[in-house]
Structure formats: C-alpha cells, structure tokens
C-alpha cells in the first residue's frame, strides 16, 4: 500500500514539474516579447519605421527595412519556383532509388551547414568570383542556398498531402500526368504551400550571419527611390546595391558601441523583427485557412 501511495505521490510531483516547465517556457517567451515591446515604446513611430538612420541621434530604419524586404522578395523569387519544381519531382516522380537518396541526403546536409559558412561560401562565389562586391543579389543567392532544400521539402509535403483520388480521377479522364499535376494537384496543394512559404519567409527576414559577407554591413546613405536604373548600384531598386538588412544592423549597432540612443534604436529594431515574426506566423495561419476554404468550399 505504501509503495502505491509513493507512486501516486511521485506522479503528482512529476506532473507538477512538467506543468512548471510548460508555464516557465511560455513565460520566458512572453517576457522576451514584452521586454522588447516595452523598450520600443516611445521610439516606435512612423518616422522611425520609414526615416533615415542617423549617427548622432535616434534616426530611422527605413532603408534597412527596405533592404530586408528586398532581399526576402529576391530570395523567394529564386527558391519558390525551383523549390516547387523540385518538390513536384520528389512527390510525384521519385521512386526509392539512388538518385532520390542522394537528393535527400544533400537536402539534409545543406540544412545543417552553419549560416556563417554559407556566408563564406557566398563571399567566395557571389562576391569575389563574380566581382559584384557586396550586393543584395549576392545576399539573396546565399540565403537561397539554405532556403532551397527547405522550400523543396515544404512543396513535397504539400503535394503528398493531396488525396490520391484526385489524381486517379484526373488520369481516368484521360489527362496526362503533367496535366494532372498542373491542373489538379498543384491547385489543391497551394494552401499548404503558401503557409510554408510565409513561415520560411519569417526565417529569411531574420537571418543575419549569411548576409554579413555577402550583402554587406554599412549604414546606407540616402536612398533615391526615383532612380529606377536597375544596373546602377546607387539605386535602391538595383539588385547590385549594398544591402544591410535590419538584423545585420542590430548586430552592427551592438558591435560598434552601446550608447543610450544606439541601444534605443537597437531595441526598437529588435521589436520590429519580433513583430514581423508574429505577423508572419499569424499571417501564415490566416491565409492558409482562407485559401483552404476557397479551394475546398467553392
């Protein structure tokens, strides 16, 4: 009887500890978010979000947000089409064979490479070999290196989740396999794909180490958005302009010096990054659900 009572007591204690861990971790997350939002109050304003950075006072982070978004879009332009095509192969064509194994192993290897090493790779390939120097395009290509396997796997999962009946029905109507994939399978897979794309977009947005040696570290000078010459490195629209992103900027601020106004800027920038992660997460859920209803409910 005492052994049983002891077991029940131990069970109660263990349950308490497990609850404690759960509450502790959620509390830490809330504390981190709360810390930065509180620290950003008073700094976070439209003029901060869209204004120009300053070396002498609390300036803005407009050009840095621009660079982050620009590199994000450029990266997705590369990885979404390629990743989707790769995902189609892995889900629809690939069998159990040597080629499939090699592709899968390669995907895992790339996902494991530290982002600073991807940055070095980008430095060798997209900065030095091409003689582009530090560019948004070089940064986007470096990010594409480790985003591509992720995107490919997301597309594969979204396509695999499409019920087999849909394919059989299409093939029975006499469509070819490719017609079936393009007109039946992909439309059904799109909600899952969109959710995945947005979630990885959040990760690309916050990445910094791979961009240090590829997109560059510098406080951008005044951006002339009227300059639409895509080959002019001074144009913010050009893929060949040096592009310090918001994440890289936080790192730069911290390593330069931590004066009080600099810390204020860094805190508010971190709050913006966290808010972006929250928006990307909620957006991914919301949009995925919306598209799901469109596709299945029509």
């Amino acid at each position: 009887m005492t052994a049983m009572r002891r077991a029940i007591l131990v069970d109660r204690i263990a349950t308490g500890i497990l609850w404690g861990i759960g509450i502790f971790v959620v509390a830490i997350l809330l504390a981190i978010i709360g810390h930065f939002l509180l620290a950003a109050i008073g700094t976070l304003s439209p003029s901060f979000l869209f204004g120009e950075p300053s070396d002498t006072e609390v300036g803005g982070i407009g050009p840095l947000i621009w660079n982050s978004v620009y590199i994000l879009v450029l990266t997705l332009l590369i990885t979404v089409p390629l990743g989707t095509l790769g995902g189609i192969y892995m889900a629809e064509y690939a069998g159990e064979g040597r080629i499939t194994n090699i592709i899968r192993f390669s995907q895992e290897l790339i996902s494991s490479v530290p982002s600073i090493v991807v940055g070095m790779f980008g430095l060798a390939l997209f900065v030095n070999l091409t003689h582009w120097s530090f560019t948004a395009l070089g940064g986007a290509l470096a990010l594409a290196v480790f985003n591509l396997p992720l995107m490919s796997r997301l597309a594969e999962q979204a396509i695999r989740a499409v019920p087999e009946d849909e394919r059989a029905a299409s093939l029975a109507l006499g469509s070819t396999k490719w017609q079936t994939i393009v007109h039946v399978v992909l439309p059904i897979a799109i909600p899952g794909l969109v959710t995945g794309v947005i979630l990885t977009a959040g990760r690309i947005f916050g990445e910094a180490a791979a961009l240090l040696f590829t997109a560059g570290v510098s406080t951008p000078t005044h951006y002339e958005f009227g300059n639409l010459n895509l080959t002019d490195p001074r144009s913010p629209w050009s893929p060949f302009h040096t592009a310090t992103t918001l994440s890289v900027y936080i790192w730069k601020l911290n390593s330069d010096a931590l004066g009080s106004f600099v810390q204020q800027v860094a805190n508010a920038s971190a709050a913006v990054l966290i808010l972006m992660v929250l928006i990307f997460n909620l957006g991914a859920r919301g949009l995925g659900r919306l598209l799901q209803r469109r596709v299945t409910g029509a």
Partner: protein
Amino acid sequence: MASPPVAVNLHQPLTLSGRLDLPRRFTLAAAAIVVIIVGLLLAFIGWNGTQVFTDTGQSISAILGPTWAPTDGVFGILPFILGTLGVMVVAALIAGPLAIGLAVFMAEVAPPWATSITRPSMEIFVGIPSVVYGFLGATVLVPFLRINFGALGFTVGKSWFAGSLVLALMILPTIASIAYDALLTIPADLRSASLALGTTRWQTIRHILLPAAKAGLLTAVILGMMRAAGEALAVQMVIGNRPVIPTSLTAPMTTLTAQITLDMGNTVSGEPWNQALWTMGLVLLIMSFTFVVLARRLGRGRRAS
C-alpha cells in the same frame, strides 16, 4: 466468364512523348540543384580551407595548436574548436532536459487548451531571429551576471556561461518540437497497455514512453547541438571573444563562428590569417556533416527496431 482485370500501371508512360517525359527531367533538374550546391560548397570551402597548408605551408599540427597569435604568424585554432564544443555541450545540458520535459508535457500531460498555447508559442520561439537573442543576452543577461554574480567570477559578464545560456534559449524550441514529434509517433497501445497494468502516468512516461522514444529524443538533442555549434552572431555578442582555451564557465572565451564573424572583414584574401579563418569554416562544415550522419544513423536504428 469474366476476363481477368488488366493491370495498368498509371505511372508507366504509354506514348513516345510520354517515354521522353520532359516534365520528369525538368523537375528532376530542379530537385538535383541541391546536389550541385553540396558539391560547390565542398569544393569552395575545401579549397579555401586547405590553402593555409598548401599555399602558406603550415603543418596540420601547427594549425591544430593551442595558441592563436595571428600577428606573430601563429595560427593554432584549438581554442576555437574547444570553445565551440564547450559552449555547445553546456547549452545542450541546460536546454536538453527542459526541452524534453516540455515535449513530454505537450504530448502527455497538457490538456487541449494548454497545447493550443504551447504549440504556437514554440513556432514563434523558433522564429525569433538569433540576433535578437544575442542582443537580449548582451543588454540584459551580461550586465545581470556582471552586477549580481561578479563575485563568482563574472567580472566582465561576457562568458562561456552567457554564451551557453543564450544558445540554450535558442535551441530549446528546436529540441522540444522534434522530441514532441518523436513522442507522438509512439503507438497508443503501449500507453494503454502500461496504464491497464495499473501504473501511474509518470511511471508510464518514465519506464515506457521515454525508453521507446529514446532514438528520437537523442536525434532531437543532436540537431539542437548542431544548431548551437553553428550559431554565430548571437554567441559572438555575449561570449567575450577571447582566443584562449576555455577553462572557466565565468570567463570570456570564443568559438569558431565568433572568430570568423569578427576577423573575416578585417583580413585580406590570400594572407595566412584569412586562410586560417577558411580552415575554421572547413572544420565547421565537417562538424555539421558529422552531425547529419549521426542523426541519420539514429533515425535508421529507430526505423529498424
């Protein structure tokens, strides 16, 4: 007399154009890009990472030596390798038990309403950029350690322990979500069978579920350690960047990633100092590939059993 059904393989192309199957080749080409990238990575990092031996003529034992004095031409990278391993192991020791506890909580204990809070929290946790963790460490944790625990040896605050704690925070959600998936794959029968014998929930967790998920949990910790070893900026911001062989948790030290972050921009391509940084990158690449192979081995063992 019904004729036997003819088996038609829908995946077998029937026409000439089908046999050529351009879409198949086209998508295969896209899928195979990752293989080319791995090749390029190995070629570029491998070539640059061995220049310090082939071009400058340093010996392997000199490069693996304990002293880093680049201005004197001494490029021992042992402090960085030990630093990376040290910071990684301590981070895993802190985050591992917490993360597995959290995974067990989410999989076995939490009622649905609690899971609906912890799961999205994990996703947001994973999504927070590492610079944000690093900045938090540099502006909150480091001063806290210096002011409150200076007597324990945290004279500057930036330390091995600070680095490990920041990393532990970062890899906690990674380990927890993979461990959670591993626990979910355990067949429900095991649970019911154990509980039917009159065991408490904790006894079931302790003696049935954790052993059953062992390979999966180990994989989760290994992937977390991999992330910790490769993290650069967050660590660099809190670790103190002192190129010494780490001996004390409270003292500044440095890692492979931190040193590359700091020195890459200040050195010129082709000089031995720069070449040594590439060698450090190569070491990181080899380490991460080793982790992948380890995780694969474990995964295979799990599937076989």
